[in-house]
């Protein structure tokens, strides 16, 4: 029963001193995880036998995926550029609007606690909404096409950049800001000249980082009709034309890696 003993054990050292050793909680945590895993397996119908039975079907798909149909690439440039456009304009506008939102959500800039909490809550809720769901709702309002995708990316970027930015503003050095206030500048002026220069590099870097991630998200928004390359992806998977799917994924991967490399270089220069 020593393993499950709750009481800390006392060890007497050779010099007569006693040391209290805390009981490890690990056995309980492991037990809990095992129970939860089994429960989750039951609930989701986890079946390893079925997986191995169906494995041949997976090989057929993979074989075609790794034989991309290069002739199909000529039809992909326009949707691919649409995807990049959507993510760029959505990220740029979103990052721009994130600045006033972050200002309102910073407890050291706004003294009204209600405004701060409401802005923070708004940003959290916006961040929780899955981009794909927002895009899907947007297609009902704005019609099918790139506009709906742009709106979805725009909203996610506000939330993402806004949250990271208000954390930066709250951790900024307030001395210059206070000095400027005390010589009679307005709070907005002081923010512009004391806080903004401090957070600007990380703000731009976050915006670039979110653009990187958004290209990836934008590529799937076509599944719900919100424009870009996702539409072709959905169609080709529907037709089981996996060598076309392979081509799309290859192109997407190259695009993402190129954009990531460019953005990473820029971000390193910024910070």
């Amino acid at each position, binding site marked *: 029963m020593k393993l499950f003993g709750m009481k800390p054990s006392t060890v007497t050292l050779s010099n007569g001193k006693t040391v209290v050793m805390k009981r490890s909680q690990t056995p309980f945590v492991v037990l809990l995880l095992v129970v939860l895993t089994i429960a989750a397996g039951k*609930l*989701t119908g986890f079946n390893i036998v079925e997986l191995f039975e169906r494995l041949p079907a997976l090989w057929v798909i993979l074989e075609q995926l790794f034989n991309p149909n290069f002739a199909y690439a000529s039809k992909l440039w326009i949707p691919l550029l649409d995807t990049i456009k959507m993510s760029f304009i959505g990220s740029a506008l979103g990052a721009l609007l994130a600045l006033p939102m972050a200002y309102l959500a910073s407890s050291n800039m706004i003294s009204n606690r209600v405004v701060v909490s409401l802005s923070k809550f708004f940003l959290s809720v916006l961040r929780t909404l899955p981009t794909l769901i927002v895009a899907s709702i947007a297609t*009902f309002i704005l019609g099918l096409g790139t506009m709906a995708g742009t709106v979805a990316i725009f909203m996610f970027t506000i939330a993402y950049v806004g949250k990271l930015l208000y954390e930066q503003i709250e951790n900024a050095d307030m001395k210059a800001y206070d000095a400027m206030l005390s010589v009679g500048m307005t709070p907005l002026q002081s923010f512009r000249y004391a806080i903004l220069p401090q957070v600007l590099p990380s703000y731009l870097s976050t915006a670039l980082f979110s653009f990187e991630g958004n290209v990836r998200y934008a590529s799937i928004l076509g599944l719900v009709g919100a424009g870009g390359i996702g539409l072709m992806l959905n169609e080709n998977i529907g037709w089981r034309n996996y060598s076309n799917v392979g081509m799309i994924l290859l192109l997407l991967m190259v695009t993402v890696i190129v954009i990531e490399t460019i953005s990473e270089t820029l971000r390193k220069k910024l910070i």
Partner: protein
Amino acid sequence: MNAVQRQYEQEPRWKTSTIISMIFAFLFLVWSTTAIDFSNFTESGMKIAKNILLGIVQPNMDLLFNFTQQGVPYLLLETVAIAFLGTIVGSVLAIPLAFLSATTIVPKPVAYLVRLLLIVIRTIPAIIYGLLFIRVTGQGAFTGVLTMSFVSIGMLSKLYTDVIEELDHGVLEAMESAGCTTYEKIRFGVIPQLSALFVSIVIYRFDMNMRDAAVLGLVGAGGIGAPLIFAMNSHRWPEVGALLIGLIILILIIEWMSNRLRSKIIKGV
């Protein structure tokens, strides 16, 4: 020239490079504005927007507190189960891959090859794996679990690798000089260094998987996504409201718990 002026003169000048990058960014921006197009935004769009807002403000309460298999609580439970099991399976599968891509453990060519594979896994969004796995194991939560397990591997392995490469070798050398066996070195020298960070990484991934699992239903891989998209397509906005509210609350709670747990594990508070 006083000290202030001298310091001012020393400030690095970025003028040309700033102007050039701004021109590029501006041109890129102008080009991308073609994605904005209000031509499809009509009167009916306005009406739908109003209905959506009304639906979210007045959600379908019966659905929100319905404890059968069609109710929000059960769907959320299923979503959590998919994300949880996916994270557990992924976190185990990622461990060997992480060791194989650590340059301090295996020869460099092997490490870079495994890394390339991990990059490929990471670049493709979860929902695309979902679409592919549906062709293999059919619709349902099991497909969702497979998707989440597979997607998790990419990021988990990368973060594990970073931890493994940071491993403090001094401890191992000290143990060796004190005469410890290989098993003892792993048990008391390696595992304690890795476990806390690994657990923290896995909890973070669970938080992320929750968001992905919520949309997997869109392609039929179980969870809350499928009823959500059905309700949207048939314009039952109060139902959409109920499902979304449930989802938002759940994700916020899990995010809060994940942050608390991780700071407790890493910093001990």
